[in-house]
């Protein structure tokens, strides 16, 4: 088993195919989207592949140490240009292929017009502890 992180981006990923901001959808389309994500997570709980999922607020700040006795530096008013992560889901699956398959499914969540969003999800493997048994 290996853990993978599926990252959703507010910004920083290539544009989705069905790229319409959510507030331009109909309320029914929003409900369908939310339900799809919820069903997806429930199904993965059923298969034992779900680990965790969290959504993040769209405001992110870069912070850096600025030397002894000085307050930390933050990245100022240029938030428009940086990558922003919208949320994550962690899955624990048997193979890389399965992880790609699930990421593809999640990316197919319905959006405007009921059609899949085709949004880009970032798939990142977790680094793991060395195995106890190596031979």
């Amino acid at each position, binding site marked *: 088993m290996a853990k993978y992180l599926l990252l959703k981006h507010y910004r920083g990923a290539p544009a989705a195919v069905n790229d319409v901001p*959510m507030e*331009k*959808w109909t309320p029914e389309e929003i409900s369908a989207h*939310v339900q799809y994500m919820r069903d997806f997570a429930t199904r993965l709980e059923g298969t034992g592949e779900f680990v965790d999922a969290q959504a993040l*607020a769209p*405001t992110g700040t870069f912070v850096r140490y600025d030397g002894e006795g000085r307050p930390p530096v933050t990245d100022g008013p240029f938030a428009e240009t940086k990558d922003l992560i919208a949320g994550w889901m962690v899955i624990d699956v048997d193979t890389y292929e399965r992880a790609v398959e699930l990421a593809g499914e999640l990316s197919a969540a319905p959006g405007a017009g009921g059609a899949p969003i085709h949004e880009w999800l970032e798939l990142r493997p977790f680094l793991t502890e060395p195995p106890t048994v190596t031979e």
Partner: protein
Amino acid sequence: MDEALLRSLTPGVLTILVRRGADFAAAEDAVQDALLQAVRVWPADPPRDSKGWLVTVAWRKFLDVTRADAARRRREDLVDEEPAPGPAPSVDDTLQLYFLCAHPSLTPASAVALTLRAVGGLTTRQIAQAYLVPEATMAQRISRAKRTVSDVRFDQPGEVATVLRVLYLVFNEGYSGDVDLAAEAIRLTRQLAAAVDHPEAAGLLALMLLHHARRAARTAPDGSLVPLAEQDRGRWDTALIAEGIGILQAALARDRLGEFQAQAAIAALHADAPTAEETDWPQIVEWYDELSRLTDSPVVRLNRAVAVGEADGPRAGLAALANLDPSLPRHTAVAAYLHERDGDLATAARLYAEAAHQAPNLAERDHLTRQAARLNAQLNG
């Protein structure tokens, strides 16, 4: 296994140990050990005197730990003079526990955790689940809190207002795992209100009951938020509402108004209206004015702007809103709502979308996004 009984006995057992000379932190550990043992043993072998059983076992656990500690030998001598455990004294000084757990030297998060454990009798695991943090993290938070108050004398009266604040924090946590924190806060506030003669304790209890009474109607089956005006009032718990109003009226009659009573009065006016249209908004505005005098909180003034919008029309609401800091949480959402009521759908849709971006939780974000979507659909259609 009556878990509610166990929990209600916890604070009394703890105070008996402390009065016998155990320090708070060690006594608290011993009581938790005794509770765990009770969970294991009671189903097969229920005790005749539950509290006496807990006191005996907890005291023995405390002694085991103390005996192992040579530096505490003096306390051991003291123990020898202790009378054999009989029926536990019924003097209830758990009030001291409330004050200790709400001690000003604790951070709000620590005070809440310690209250749930020492007064509420919850296990560390239950509290950790309720707050969605790892058990080890919560264990650290609790033991640090216990160290912080270990030097505090147990016989000093505390500030009721601080205790009420802590219980309010517990109530406001919406998470519900193994333990329903809102119900737990109500249980503890009931205990407190019965023990102290303080109109604000009654006010807080009334406020909690009135909010809790509407809980079933507050979310749709799919988990989305249902605003007050759209709630199915048939699903409100009328018995809780009646109880809350009764408690509130008795508190108000004593003429020592505080912010919890004022908030409860507003909740009562909502709960009393048979339909949203019949809500007595002018009186709600008056209560918000009282509340502003008592707290001077910007959040109160924001809510007041909503009430003014209902009582005197959206323009009046927007005028009240104009005096407030736009960076206030939910300011944008309120502005969106008032603009919609005023008929300016385009502005309202833009503001709802903006408010959704600022929303502090998913349910609110989805709700606000849907509001924007609804108006955009109307504008395009």
